[in-house]
């Protein structure tokens, strides 16, 4: 499927009016994901922005045109594993899919996701990583970048503060589960995202995991019109590389010849506005180290 044809050749399966922030690229990602997956899909959206903006619906109304669950923050993967088994037993082939935030994925729901990955449950698990518990007021998560302002890692008037720990390298953690398919994605690279959802859909021998990097307009302080540009800069600077791991083989999907300085990405985001040159150098060094590790894995 060509990304440019999504709008004319696929069906919209999410309510046309959901209350995601103006310019939210998670909304874009969810619509793309569902357009590619199609109507033969059962969706689970745990508490978080996408649940909160109405994708699971309110009262007796649904926010999606496919069956959609509202699992707990801590159990989307195990709930879907059971649902998938039920349909396997009936002999019905249906995409069973989680669209979950980073809080639900890298922190709260990790043990059940890890279990499903290890057992080889045939579900598609998509994490939208907006680097924090955004729906409840922008708290830090294990996926928040070091140094970032969040409501639980405040910054004082002298510019001291921000998160003190590193971002969990979650795509790598999932890759190391030796699942059949693991990929990173980004809303600025829609064709790449479409290809990866199509691949995940084909997997029939275990769990497929996709990690989407989604800069958050409201929680990070990004201009709504720059929503896609900031996401693109994260790839162009190697801060959030695009890669996939198929049956243990790493492949880079984007290998910028002249990567931009991470500073160009950081500068567009208010949550990093207090960072000193040294802080930025540290993030650059960390980015370089992780990128080199990835290049090495891809050359094996």
């Amino acid at each position: 499927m060509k990304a440019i044809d999504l709008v004319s050749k696929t069906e919209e399966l999410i309510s046309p009016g959901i209350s995601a922030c103006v310019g939210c690229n998670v909304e874009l990602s969810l619509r793309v994901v569902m357009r590619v997956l199609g109507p033969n899909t059962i969706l689970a959206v745990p508490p978080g922005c996408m649940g909160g903006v109405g994708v699971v619906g309110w009262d007796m109304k649904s926010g999606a045109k496919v069956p959609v669950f509202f699992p707990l923050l801590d159990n989307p993967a195990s709930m879907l594993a059971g649902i998938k088994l039920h349909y396997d037993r009936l002999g019905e082939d249906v995409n069973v899919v989680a669209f979950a935030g980073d809080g639900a994925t890298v922190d709260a729901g990790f043990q059940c996701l890890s279990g499903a990955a290890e057992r080889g449950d045939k579900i598609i698990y998509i994490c939208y990583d907006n680097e924090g518990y955004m729906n409840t007021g922008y708290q830090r998560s294990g996926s928040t970048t070091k140094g970032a302002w969040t409501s639980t890692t405040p910054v004082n008037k002298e510019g001291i503060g921000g998160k003190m720990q590193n971002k969990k390298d979650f795509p790598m953690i999932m890759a190391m589960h030796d699942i059949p398919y693991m990929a990173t994605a980004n809303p600025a690279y829609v064709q790449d995202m479409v290809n990866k959802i199509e691949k995940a859909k084909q997997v029939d021998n275990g769990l497929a995991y996709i990690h989407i990097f989604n800069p958050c307009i409201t929680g990070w302080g990004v201009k709504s019109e720059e929503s896609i540009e900031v996401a693109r800069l994260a790839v162009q600077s190697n801060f959030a590389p695009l890669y996939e791991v198929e049956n243990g083989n790493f492949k880079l999907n984007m290998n910028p010849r002249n990567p931009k300085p991470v500073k160009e990405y950081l500068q567009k985001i208010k949550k990093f506005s207090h960072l000193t040159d040294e802080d930025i150098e540290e993030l650059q060094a960390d980015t370089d180290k992780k990128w080199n590790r990835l290049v090495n894995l891809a050359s094996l």
Partner: protein
Amino acid sequence: MKFKSKYIVPVGADGIYEIDTGKWRTERPVMDKDKCIECGICAMYCPVFSIIKEDEKYIITYDYCKGCGICVHECPKDAIDMIPEEGK
């Protein structure tokens, strides 16, 4: 309680929940067809899928467009402008 679904999980009995996000707009994107090359990039990045393709031409619809300005920013031909919404 009646649910519409061939699956064991429900789809809303009372239909689809939606809100008028078009009312949020303070500015509206307007396309200049003299500059537009019909590349579709604006439509691909619109988070609301408000830009549709009709008779091989891209057009902006306003029922749900939130006025984010992504289409303006991403258009390679500068063919879209934001103009203030009346009364806002």
